[in-house]
Structure formats: C-alpha cells, structure tokens
C-alpha cells in the first residue's frame, strides 16, 4: 500500500517535470514554425516603408535599433548606480549590518514590482519633468526596473568571494576602496552574468516602454526622440487584422527569441566559469 502511493506520486512528479521542461520547447517550436517563413533579410535590415502596417514593404530595423539603444543605455546607467551599492553593502558596511540587510530586502521587493508599475511611475516622472515620450524617458524607466536585477545578481557574485582573500588584501595595508577594486576584479564572471541577465530583461520588456519610449517608424537620432522597441513592434503588428502584418509579428518574435536565447545561453556559460574559479 505504501509502495503504491509512492509510485503514483513518483509518476505524477515525473509527468510534471517533463511537462514543465517541455513548455520551453513548445513555445520555441510554435514561434519558429510560424515565424521563420516570413523572416526575410528585408525584415531585419529596413525600416518600415509607407503602408507597412497594411502589408506593404519594409522591416523592423527601427524596433531592433530602438531596443538596442534602450537596453544598452539603461544597462550602462544601471551599472553606474548598482556597482557602488554592491560595494557599499559588501565592503564598506559591516557584515550583516542593518543597512546592508535593509538594502537587500528593498531590492528583493523592488525586484518583484511589475514593470507596468515602473512604466506608470516613469510616465509620472516624465510628465513632471516636462519630457515627451522619448528614448531618454524609456532609458530612465528601464534603468529603474533593472537596477534591482543588477544589484541582486552582483551581490550574489561578490558574496561568494572567499573571506580569506579579503582579509589578505586588508593585511597588506589596502584601504577599503582598494579592496573593493580587487574583489570586483575577482567577481567579473558574476558581474558579466548580471549584466546579461538585466540585458535580457530590458530587451524583452514591453510594459515599461509602452508609456515612456513611445513608438516610431524611424530610427531615433537623439535622446528626445521617441524610439520603437521589439516587443511593442510584435504586440502592435499582432493586433492588426491583416494577415501579412500578423506574419511579420511572428517573424519579429523569432528575432526577439533568438536574441534572448543567445543572451541567456551566454550568461549560462559565463556563470559556469564563475563556479570553476571558486577557491
């Protein structure tokens, strides 16, 4: 009797493990089989031409470049803010001090705040500062969203640097600032993983940029122009009733999928190197 129950549950466990692992492949299969057919060189190398949204020629280069601008800009800005924070809570603040703990807790919470809330908040700031929907507003909002990801992931990477290393650096007479530089160098693989993680989140998020970056058919040339993004380009084209435009949405989805997969897999490989370097 005990065995039967155990076997039933073991069967259920294997079933759900297989089911959950296969969802990834189901999603990838659907997107690739639908979108590969419409993916042409024009799609990724041209901006929309006249009548693009009723099925005429052109591509989604505007969205690809817009997404890259926003993602690169916000990741750089995010690093500028989050590296000092990670150094502070790991090296300057005392171990398990109140400030360090409350910082970690706040970032855990901020990490859970959905991007639509950041989007609405970014919109409020934008209106307050008198900005229009623009590349800059998009970058600021996405930066707010990815700082928690960067801080959490880098904090994890810095925390695994062995205590002995830190002590030996101190014992050579280094200041905390000099120690921080050495510890950071030691956690470079972890930092790269963090950057890739936030990169993936930033490029795939739609709700943040919906209010703030706007949408345009041209490639932005300055920070105060609106910028198109890949997820929004998929979203808008999919809601069109015209089949050709919908097919382009699937092709755009393939582009986004490939970008995200490359980022995730690179992150995986880099973080494997991280664990090799552990002492």
């Amino acid at each position, binding site marked *: 009797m005990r065995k039967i129950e155990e076997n039933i549950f073991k069967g259920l466990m294997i079933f759900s493990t297989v089911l959950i692992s296969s969802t990834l492949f189901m999603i990838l299969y*659907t*997107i690739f089989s639908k979108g590969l057919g419409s993916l042409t060189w024009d799609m990724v190398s041209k901006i929309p031409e006249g009548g693009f949204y009723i099925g005429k020629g052109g591509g989604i280069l505007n969205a690809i470049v817009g997404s890259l601008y926003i993602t690169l800009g916000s990741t750089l800005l995010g690093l500028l*803010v989050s590296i000092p924070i990670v150094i502070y809570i790991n090296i300057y603040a005392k171990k398990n001090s109140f400030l360090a703990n409350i910082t970690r*807790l706040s970032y855990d919470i901020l990490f859970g705040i959905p*991007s639509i809330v950041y989007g609405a908040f970014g919109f409020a700031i934008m209106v307050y500062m008198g900005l229009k929907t623009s590349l800059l507003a998009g970058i600021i909002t996405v930066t707010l969203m990815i700082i928690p990801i960067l801080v959490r992931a880098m904090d994890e990477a810095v925390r695994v640097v062995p205590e002995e290393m830190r002590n030996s650096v101190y014992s050579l007479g280094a200041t905390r*600032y000099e120690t921080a530089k050495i510890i950071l160098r030691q956690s470079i693989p972890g930092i790269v993983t963090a950057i890739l993680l936030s990169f993936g989140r930033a490029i795939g*998020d739609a709700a943040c940029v919906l209010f703030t970056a706007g949408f345009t058919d041209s490639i932005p040339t300055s920070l105060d122009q609106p910028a198109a993004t890949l*997820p929004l380009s998929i979203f808008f084209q999919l809601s069109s009733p015209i089949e050709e435009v919908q097919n382009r949405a699937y092709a755009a989805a393939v582009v986004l999928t490939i970008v995200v997969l490359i980022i995730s897999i690179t992150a995986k490989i880099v973080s494997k190197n991280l664990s090799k370097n552990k002492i």
Partner: protein
Amino acid sequence: MKNIRLLKDSFFSKIFFTLTILSISTVILLGLGLYYKSIPILDSSSLSKLLFSSEWKPFKEAFGFYPFIMGTLWVTAISIVIALPLSMLTAIYLSEYAPNRIRKLVLPLIELLSGIPPVLFGVWGVLVIVPIIQDYLAPHFVEFTTGYSVLAGGIVLAIMIFPLIISILIEVFDNVPQELRDASLSLGATQWQTIKKVLLRKSVDGIVAATVLAISRAFGETIAVLMVCGNLAQVPNSIFDSGYPLPALIANNYGEMMSIPMYDSALMFAALLLFVIIFLFNAISRIILFRIEKRTN
C-alpha cells in the same frame, strides 16, 4: 601619499553611502509618486466606491474598478491552481528523487524559460492556448466563447510563474537538513513518507512564501495577459469568460489617458493599487525566506 589614499577611501565611502540610501528610497518614491498622481481620483470619489463599484464610464467620470479587480483575481487564482501543484511535484522530484544528470538537464531549461520575454508568451498563448480553448475545451462546457478568456490568461501565467516557484522551492528544500531525512529513513519510513512527514512539514513557511511571491508576480503581469484575456470590462462568471485584469487596463489606455485628466488619475490609482498589494506580498514572503536562510546558517 598615505593621506590621499585614506581621503579617497572616505570620499568614496560617503558617495557610496549616499547612493545606497537614495536608491533604497526608490521604494518610497514609487509609492509616493503614484499616490500623488492618484490624489484627484481619491478626492472625487470614496475608496470603497472605487474598489467595489462596477460602473466604468470614464467620460462620465465614473471609475469602478470592481470588474478589473475581479479579472485580476480570476486570472491569478487560475494560474496558481495550475502552477502550484505541478511546480511542487517538479521541485520535490528534482531535489529528492532525480539523479544529478537529470537535475543538470532540467534546471537550465527552467532557467531559460524564465528568460523568455512576456510578449512571446503572449504570442504563444494567442497561437496555441486560445484556439485549443475555443475549439476543443470550451464547447464541452459553454455554448460560445472566442477562446480569449481568463482561463487562457491563467494558463499562460502559470507557465510564466513555474520557474519562480520551482527555483524558490528547490532552495527551500535544500535548506532542510539532511540529518532530518536520514533520521526518518533510518526509522523505516519510505522516501515518500519522509517527504510528506518531514520535508514538506519543515518547509511549510517556504512554500507559503513561494506561493505569495508567485501570486504577486501573476498580479502584475501585463502584456501576455493583455493579449489573451479578451479585455471586456465585466466580472467573469466562468473560466471561459473574458476578463480585464488591472495591468491590462493600464497598458491598454495609456494613449487616451492624457486627454481626460480624471482618467489619468484613475489609471495611476490602478498602478498604486498594484504597487501596494505587490509590495506587501513581496515584503512578507521575502522576510519569511530571509528567516529560513538565517535559521539554516
């Protein structure tokens, strides 16, 4: 020379400290900013009317969020009902039964799944889940449905929250000391009995925390849900009805809200509502998880 080094050290200490404090206050700023923008709507109608009235007529300045709140609750509830048992079984299997090579095969797949952008889940939902519901599932139960329903939203959301629940549960299970399992096994209990009586009982708080985190994740998910839920401002009566969750409402009306002042404020209130609920849920579950980690160290 020595002085310059020390000066540099204390200089950066101050800058980094200020940055840390400033950045923590983002949490407060987020709440205050959204509250500030929703003052007009809070002044013009009472909180209970906003939350429990079903009348949604922006042009007559009637903003009842009840249908949207119910839409959110339906979608979230469906996703948790689907995701929790499946994720629990998977997490138990991966941490207790699975040989190392299967763990090494499955965990990266789940991690990859967590990196897929919401809009792609939405595309998949539109292409696969909605037609399945429309053609195969719903005809057995109701007369007519487009397939764009709270069920479709719930299923898509469930897949999106699998990775979150599983990764937290595996961490929680790994934190249960091996000695407890050994003690139970050496008393003659089977592995399944050990899981039921020792592992799960020891992890109740962790399971609660994972569930609460998953709920708050499902609460705020926007684009994917927006694409498959149908977006009708009604209170759903069955899982095959269309719904209109709060995040979808905000996202769908961003263009119009500029022109009508009260509308702008109403949508900001919706964002504030999401923020407050998700903030509380996250704070509770993070504190629980923090305690678990502290206990084992």
